[in-house]
């Protein structure tokens, strides 16, 4: 039994997000809108050893599957992540995340003067660029600090 399996128990039904970039687990939970009040069983491993990443985080959520938009934003926080669907303790589906072309409604533009931060009926939209995302309204670029700008925080 590996070290991280000892720390993070198996789940019966739900989602395991594995190979999360070390340090991003709490941001993944923020993307999922999970703060503990929802009643889901949640297990988190942080900075656990990984053969491929050196260190990784892992998030297991009981009774919860992910929407495509949630997977999209996780792909930016953790490009190596895998999303595993678990039923009756078995992984029935395992998918690598893929970078989307756009991220809609999940990030807040850091430019305070951007029209998306005014009281207007508009949803923030970011185009994914080589090393980050770019606001489709004001052009502001977010690079490594994407987790700081989650609209769900």
């Amino acid at each position, binding site marked *: 039994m590996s070290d991280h399996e000892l720390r993070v128990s198996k789940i019966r039904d739900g989602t395991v997000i594995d190979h999360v970039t070390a340090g991003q687990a709490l941001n993944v939970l923020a993307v999922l809108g999970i703060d503990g009040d929802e009643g889901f069983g949640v297990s988190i491993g942080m900075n656990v050893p990984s053969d491929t990443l050196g260190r990784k985080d892992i998030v297991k959520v009981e009774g919860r599957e992910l929407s495509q938009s949630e997977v999209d934003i996780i792909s930016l926080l953790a490009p190596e992540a895998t999303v595993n669907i678990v039923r009756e303790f078995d992984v029935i589906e395992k998918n690598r995340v893929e970078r989307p072309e756009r991220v809609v409604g999940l990030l807040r533009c850091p*430019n305070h*003067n*951007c*029209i*998306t931060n*005014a*009281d*207007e*009926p*508009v949803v923030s939209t970011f185009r994914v*660029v080589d090393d980050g995302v*770019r*606001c*489709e*309204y*004001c*052009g*502001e*670029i977010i690079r490594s600090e994407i987790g700081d700008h989650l609209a769900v925080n």
Partner: protein
Amino acid sequence: MRHDHLLSAGQLTREDIEAVLDRAAEMAADPAGVAERHADRLLALCFFEPSTRTKMSFDAAMKRLGGDTVDMGTVESSSVKKGESLADTVRVIEGYADGIVLRHPSEGAAKLAAEFVDVPVVNAGDGAGQHPSQTLLDLYTMRENAGLDDLTVGIMGDLKYGRTVHSLAEALATFDARMHFVSPESLRLPRSVQFDLHEAGARLREHTELDEVLPELDVLYVTRIQRERFPDENEYQKVAGQYQIDADTLAAARDDLTVMHPLPRVDEIAPDVDGTEHAQYFPQAHNGVPVRMALLDELLSGDGGDR
């Protein structure tokens, strides 16, 4: 040009730009020929920030095409003061007019407006973002004075917040101009603009001193260093004097250097430059009318000008 709106300079190809400039030149040469062209059209002027040149030149352009304008007036005298959203404001105004010219203090405002209306929207300045119609008249002025091929342009002043600079730099990249950006470190081009320029393969260099590049320039485009942007007055004082030019400064320039400025100027170009062959900032402002006539003709006709 086949666009529903003019929101940023980045949406314009070289062919788009040249078509507008050619049409502007035709209209400037024969204003009587288009005096009734849009006689049945109304243009809404929605300026959420103060403006003199941009607003008046759009007003004049529309009237010289035979059309008319309706003016939102100042923010203080409009429903905006009551808390109405921009989206609601433009949805109401599209029922009054055939096109909307919008200036707004927030970046991205014109894009948002364009999403809510079916009439053409022209971005007449959105915060520190873009000012593409200014860019068209800037290019028109450059073409008249220096041509647009093999051009070396110096752009000096507030490059961080200067929306005219952001639009102009993107457009100059389509003409493969060599660009020299001269500013204090604190007012360098924002990374979003640098990103676009690098994506476009633009040839650019950054400087803190004008004299490093002045002798090479075909065009020097000066903008005002905005004192109010500096958190510390001492920091402003350190740089302000370095970015003023006068006739003596220009002694090091080529005889055919064209000096431009989007105006208003404060003290960055001394009055003794006005009488020199270099000074083109007043003709540049005047060019706003024929260029905006051509632009409005394209957008309001909705058929590339074949109305």
